[in-house]
């Protein structure tokens, strides 16, 4: 994974709460055995009509959304299934961060493991971002902060270990495997064994 320090981009706003992973990527696109190319299926049934034409009103289809790396969404983004295809699709499409007041547990965990930065902000900041699509924002992972166009800076919570892994581009499996000695000792020391 490539290290991530700073994301500077305009925002795309999806002003809907409880956007579930079935909306992010419908289940019929999950029969793949690789993780590539899922950006085409991102928000598929919201982006395209029954005839496969783009839905003009959908925020991603608007001209100002081009090249945007930051998605602002309503609260409880990513609820539902554990499919990691959801962050894979967002990343493949070009997103690097998602901002909301609340991001569902499994989606957040999956996002962090793939370099999609979950940014949790307060209600007031969120309301401003929802009202101002296309705002230029900067997400700085080192300081765990979001800078708004007027220069104001708001911090966001992020797990210290996840942040370290993102900043250094560290693969968590490598870290976990360094504990194999302790894992073996744990297995040996258990009175009850599965």
């Amino acid at each position: 994974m490539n290290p991530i320090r700073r994301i500077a981009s305009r925002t795309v706003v999806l002003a809907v709460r409880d956007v579930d992973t079935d909306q992010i990527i419908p289940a019929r696109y999950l029969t793949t055995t690789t993780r590539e190319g899922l950006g085409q299926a991102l928000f598929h049934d919201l982006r395209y009509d029954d005839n496969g034409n783009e839905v003009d009103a959908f925020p991603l289809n608007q001209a100002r959304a081009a090249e945007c790396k930051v998605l602002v969404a309503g609260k409880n983004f990513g609820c539902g299934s554990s499919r990691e295809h959801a962050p894979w699709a967002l990343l493949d499409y070009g997103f690097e961060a998602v901002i909301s007041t609340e991001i569902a547990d499994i989606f957040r965990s999956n996002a962090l493991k793939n370099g999609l930065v979950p940014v949790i902000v307060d209600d007031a900041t969120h309301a401003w971002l929802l009202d101002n699509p296309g705002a230029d924002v900067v997400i700085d992972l080192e300081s765990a902060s979001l800078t708004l166009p007027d220069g104001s800076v708001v911090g966001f919570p992020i797990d210290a270990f996840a942040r370290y892994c993102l900043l250094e581009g560290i693969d968590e499996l490598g870290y976990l495997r360094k504990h194999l000695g302790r894992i073996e000792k744990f297995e040996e020391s258990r009175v009850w064994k599965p």
Partner: protein
Amino acid sequence: MDPASTLFEKVWAEHVVVPETAETPAVLYIDLHLVHEVTSPQAFSVLRDSGLPVRRPDLTLATLDHSTPTTPVRTFQDLLVAGESAARQVRQLEDNCGEFGIQLLGFGSGQRGIVHVIGPELGATQPGKTIVCGDSHTSTHGAFGALAFGIGTTEVGHVMATQCLLQRRPQTLAINVNGVLPGGVTAKDLVLAIIGRIGVDGGTGHVIEYRGPVIAALDMEQRMTVCNMSIEGGARAGMIAPDDTTFQFLAGRERVPRGSDWDAAVARWRSLRSGDDATFDRSVDIDASALTPMVTFGTNPGMVIGIDDPVPSGGDASFRKALDYMQVEAGKPMAGQPVDVVFIGSCTNGRISDIEQAARILDGRRVADGVRVLVVPGSEQVKAAAEARGLDKIVTAAGAEWREAGCSMCLGMNGDIARPGELSVSTSNRNFEGRQGIGARTVLASPATAAASAIAGCVADPRKLV
């Protein structure tokens, strides 16, 4: 054990290999890793690319459920019913399990089925275990007092390679269910009511423990229905303290200990309950006595009402968007809404008692004209048990279809879908937009309500048919 510890804290503590610190998460040991075809291929690829084995294939169990047709499968041609990529995905898991030495309960095993149905059925699911799967409904196994939660594919790879996960300890949420569940009101109605109460994000960051007299009185299949939908309330895991009901369910199953080992296991399992002085980070009290059959009216499981209650009015733009999608009107009840499709099955309600619940209503009656009804057992064993009791005959005599085991129309990735605009009364767990097919409108309900709606041709109260 500490009388101040919760059930969750006890199970968590027993599995910590390396404690968490401010800088690093805990290394948590996993006792059982369940694998299916949809969320595993990319994890196997990571192992293959890194030259790593599956570290504990003996603690790993695979099956085929999501992408499998619910028509009979004997050859590769039969698999193509679900589509070419779905068929390839099934073949991929068969190949991966062969290469990495994992037991696969596949076609012809007699034990294939939805991963959350077969774990308990085989007795692989046991109290006090940590259980994970690349599937959010892994919370089901918490009904046995296991700590069970869904993970992503990267984490599937972590468990395969190390038998461990990096985890921060979640908070605890007690849901105390008091009173008595009224006649004709099921565990599905109860859990829908709970989600309606706490909201679809009410359990985010928490592990739920379901407690109280109503929970203690539920049988194991009902407890699984409740724990299954914990994730629909935002909680990755939901647990119920194991008791005699749990031990009786497990006794004699294929993968439980035998003889004196069984006695020792039960003695150990009896300690798995929250102590009298245990405190939870949050708690919610629910009175079950006032509940009626529940149905969803919107596009998430928290948008739920009693069958005769009016659809709420007001709400924000997201709420109104959901009502528009569902084509329902505020102020009117869901009862009476014309139905096109009924789906009875899934990891929420695909067990033998669920099929029985539906069959009791269907028995001697006919499905209304124009309604398509799929009854899909949760596993090959559930299917065989139902057929041994003649339930398949009741189902087909009523004009419903009796299918092979699998996830089927719960998420519509095997070709079993509802068409655009169709209203589906479904015993599954998610009424998200497009979940059961593009433009399909899903109403979540119990097997009894689903069956009653199939007979009536509209959303109907099962209490009037029993």
